[in-house]
């Protein structure tokens, strides 16, 4: 707990230091240094105590309600882990990408405020995970929600960036409204704000309308995590933000939504039967629609953003399984579902952080992250290419990396539920497993597309052909995250036991069977690890044999076989639109692809243009019209806002008279 405090202080120092040094190159050193040091100390605080320990630290503050109550328990520690790992990696990566002669945006150096808000984001995230009081939690939540607005709008001379930051702000605040309502209703019903007191009150059944509270929490935290239909801000905000910020937001901040939902479920006590199924259904719908839309994207960062939506959906599925298991007394399912959710969040943070940082290096080297402008980068940026492939393997859930272990734990939780009583629950569980399989299949396609089209083949533009490799400082965080991923693959069973600590601390779970279920799952991961080891060993053996055979029989280098066509160019390669065409023919609507072919009339058209775009259909068809209506209504209210001061004074007078009349 002391180390946790030190890390908060370091973040604060980094923030203030960067702000004081605004306009100087030193801001770009002090800010990241604060974030890096704070994150490393935070990591030490996570690992210095046993994972199952819980601590609490309460200070009174000046506000009329609530205390400054901070504490660390297993769930907090596990959700803090991505914050610290990514905080360190993204600080270094950001320092490298913003360093040197910074291209001036709007004629001023924005790096001081940028690093201020970066440190504030880390501070807010740490406080959110540690808050043990509703008021304190909401304050931390606001700090965490506001900082990204300023981080996203670093390059606010671009119209897309301004729009993305705006969408983010609206989404974040609509979510926050639900959360304030959630905690206010909770407070009104129980009269307390401390988390422990709230949980006790809820368990004693002092909570009328618990289902409404659950709905509020699901909406509020779902808006942060990006559950359908509140995911619309993710594909806008992530491409617009600088890559180290995208990595932080996607890997750590949206996990805070899952963390919040976890806490809400803890606080609300015994769940109604439909909660778990609602979470399961919402999670699967989010995962499926997220990955299908990811597959449709032609911009790597948008693709990664949609893939984050998918992964948060899988985490939500885990929470749902935990709820169903707890409610039906199936401890195996509850423990594995909850542990699987945490495990998946940890995996996702590492993979997505790495992928976003790689995308940042691509943007730096080529100037674009649209797949149509890339190609063949694996040769020019070998380390970035290898790291991206590693991250893609992991996020697609393929063995031997720990992404597979996470999905296997979720599948085991589902499998433990196929003998639930009743036809509908069994069919539901079977459907969930089939959907999980479909998500896996499409994730493979999406990341084969991202890695294959960006890093393999021929460069599609001169910029991609002349891409300059990244500097050493920029590669360090990539290698650090890649190392974390490899370590996680090697120690997947241990990681599961660690994630299981959070599940064991979940109230309402019988620890003995839950512990047994987790131990059994860890054994299963061990056996699966054996097969994974087999894959690695066999691959190395085959490669060794291949190189021996080829040195004996010789290799000749030729052009790619063009099937008799003698003038191939890089433009005839399969691109982002064509790669998904077979899938789009079947699933155009859920993928949200729109395709327009303009061609000259007649039998021999001389000119043709094909435009394939993948806008977010939900945003296009639902949110944009909705907010237009809201804007029109607000515009209509402008009649009272005409700029005539004497009338304004009349308003004041009328208000005062009305208030006096009401009070007297």
């Amino acid at each position, binding site marked *: 707990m002391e180390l946790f405090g030190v890390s908060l202080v370091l973040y604060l120092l980094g923030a203030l230091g960067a702000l004081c040094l605004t306009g100087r190159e030193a801001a770009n050193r002090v800010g990241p240094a604060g974030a890096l040091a704070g994150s490393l100390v935070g990591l030490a605080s996570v690992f210095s105590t046993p994972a199952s320990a819980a601590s609490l630290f309460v200070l009174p503050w000046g506000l009329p309600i609530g205390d400054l109550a901070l504490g660390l328990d297993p769930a907090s520690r596990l959700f803090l882990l991505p914050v610290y790992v990514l905080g360190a990696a993204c600080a270094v990566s950001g320092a490298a990408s913003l360093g040197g002669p910074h291209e001036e945006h709007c004629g001023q150096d924005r790096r001081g405020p940028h690093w201020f808000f970066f440190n504030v984001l880390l501070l807010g995230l740490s406080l959110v995970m540690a808050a043990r009081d509703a008021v304190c939690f909401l304050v931390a939540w606001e700090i965490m929600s506001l900082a990204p607005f300023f981080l996203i709008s670093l390059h606010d001379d671009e119209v897309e960036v301004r729009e993305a930051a705006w969408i983010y702000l609206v989404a974040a605040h609509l979510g926050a409204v639900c959360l304030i309502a959630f905690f206010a209703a909770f407070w009104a019903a129980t009269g307390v704000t401390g988390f422990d007191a709230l949980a006790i009150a809820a368990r004693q059944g002092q909570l009328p309308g618990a289902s409404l509270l659950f709905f509020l929490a699901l909406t509020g935290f779902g808006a942060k995590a990006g559950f359908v239909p509140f995911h619309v801000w993710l594909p806008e905000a992530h491409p617009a933000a600088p890559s180290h910020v995208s990595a932080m937001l996607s890997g750590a901040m949206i996990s805070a939504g899952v963390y919040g939902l976890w806490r809400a479920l803890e606080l609300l006590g015994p769940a109604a039967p439909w909660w778990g199924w609602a979470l399961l259904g919402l999670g699967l719908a989010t995962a499926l629609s997220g990955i299908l839309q990811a597959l449709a994207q032609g911009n790597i960062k948008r693709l990664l953003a949609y893939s984050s939506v998918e992964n948060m959906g899988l985490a939500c599925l885990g929470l749902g399984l935990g709820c169903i298991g707890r409610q039906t007394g199936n401890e195996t399912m509850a423990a594995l579902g909850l542990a699987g959710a945490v495990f998946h969040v940890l995996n996702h943070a590492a993979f997505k952080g790495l992928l976003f940082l790689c995308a940042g290096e691509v943007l730096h080297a080529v100037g674009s992250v649209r797949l149509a402008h890339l*190609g*063949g980068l*694996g040769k020019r940026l070998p380390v970035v290419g290898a790291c991206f492939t590693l991250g893609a393997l992991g996020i*697609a*859930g*393929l*063995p031997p990396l720990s992404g*597979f272990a996470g999905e*296997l734990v979720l*599948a085991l939780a589902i*499998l433990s539920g*196929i003998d639930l009583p009743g*036809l509908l629950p*069994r*069919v539901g569980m*079977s459907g969930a*497993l*089939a959907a*999980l*399989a*479909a998500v*896996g*299949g*499409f994730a*493979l*396609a999406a990341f*084969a597309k991202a*890695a*294959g*089209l960006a890093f*393999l*083949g021929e460069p599609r533009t001169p910029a991609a052909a002349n891409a300059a490799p990244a500097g050493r400082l920029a590669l360090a965080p990539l290698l650090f995250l890649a190392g974390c991923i490899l370590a996680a693959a090697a120690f997947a069973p241990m990681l599961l036991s660690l994630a299981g600590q959070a599940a064991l601390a979940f109230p309402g779970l019988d620890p003995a069977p839950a512990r047994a279920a987790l131990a059994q799952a860890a054994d*299963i991961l061990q056996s*699966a690890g054996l*097969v994974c080891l*087999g*894959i*690695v060993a*066999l*691959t190395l053996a*085959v*490669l060794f*044999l*291949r190189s021996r*055979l*080829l040195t004996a*029989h010789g*290799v*000749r*280098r*030729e052009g790619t*076989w063009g*099937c008799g066509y003698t003038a*191939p160019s890089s433009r005839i*390669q*399969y691109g982002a639109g*064509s790669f998904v065409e*077979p*899938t789009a023919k*079947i699933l155009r609507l859920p993928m949200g692809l729109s395709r327009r072919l303009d061609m000259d009339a007649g039998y021999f058209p001389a000119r043709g243009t094909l435009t394939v775009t993948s806008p977010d259909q939900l945003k296009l068809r639902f949110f944009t019209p909705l907010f237009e209506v809201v804007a029109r209504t607000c515009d209509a209210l402008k009649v009272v806002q005409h700029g005539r001061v004497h009338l304004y004074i009349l308003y004041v007078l009328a208000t005062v008279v009305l208030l006096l009349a009401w009070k007297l």
Partner: protein
Amino acid sequence: MNTLAQLLAAFVLAPLLSGIINRVKARIGGRAGRPILQTYYDLAKLVRKGAVISRTTSWVFATGPAVSLAATAAALLLLPGPGGPAAIGFSGDFMLMAYCLGLSRLGLILAALDTGSSFEGMGASREAAFAALAEPVLFLCFLCLATDTSGLSLSAMLGTGTDGAMAPQRLFVPAILFVLLLTENSRIPVDDPNTHLELTMIHEVMVLDHSGPDMACIVYGASLKLWLFGALTTLSVLPVRQMPPLSAWGTFLGGMFAVAVAVGLVESGMARLRMERVPRLLGAAGALAALSLVLMVWR
């Protein structure tokens, strides 16, 4: 010992299956056909050849076929056989098997995209799409078997033949697995393994640029995959694990032979489906799987 024998049988006999299929096709077409051991000759020849490698490619092109073969071979470790359970088995191991096949596919897809060829990109995109559609169907099949036998590992759910082995709802499962065999192994009616340069190709067009040992990896990996799916189909219908060892082996190998002949008959009797019809085939298989699952759960 038995486990070792099963693995050995898979690794040695797998290339024989395509020989049998081709012989059946040739006989029905009124030709003598190539030797039944042709795939072995091909493999021996490819291993002894050098390679021609495209200048466009990077390390991915070389690694892809190796990963693909290794992942398929690792999947075989999870496959039970006539002699006994699999070398490695645990609850939910079918998921590892499916994902190993996924890794194998990703290796080939990335290697294909590495060449920068439009043909191979085309094959890669189709392979990714159809495999993603086939994956839930495969999981539904495994779930059917799991519900029927109350076993969550492949060893528990395959070949044990509970009293319901011939129950009507279970009879769908081998049929669906056979459809998946045709899909995943690029057989007619989904893909045509014979033609190389037709625009309707999936698997064969992805490997146009591979030669020498790389091609050997791919051919051998494809044989292993065919063996894997053939064994799944056979074991899902024949209760070989309840028989005495010798007759179990005989029944199993007979079943594999029958599967190969069935593939040959399908290939001789059907034309390849139009590309947009393939999802319907998979959809029908998925609906059938869902139906039998509901029937089993209901029971």
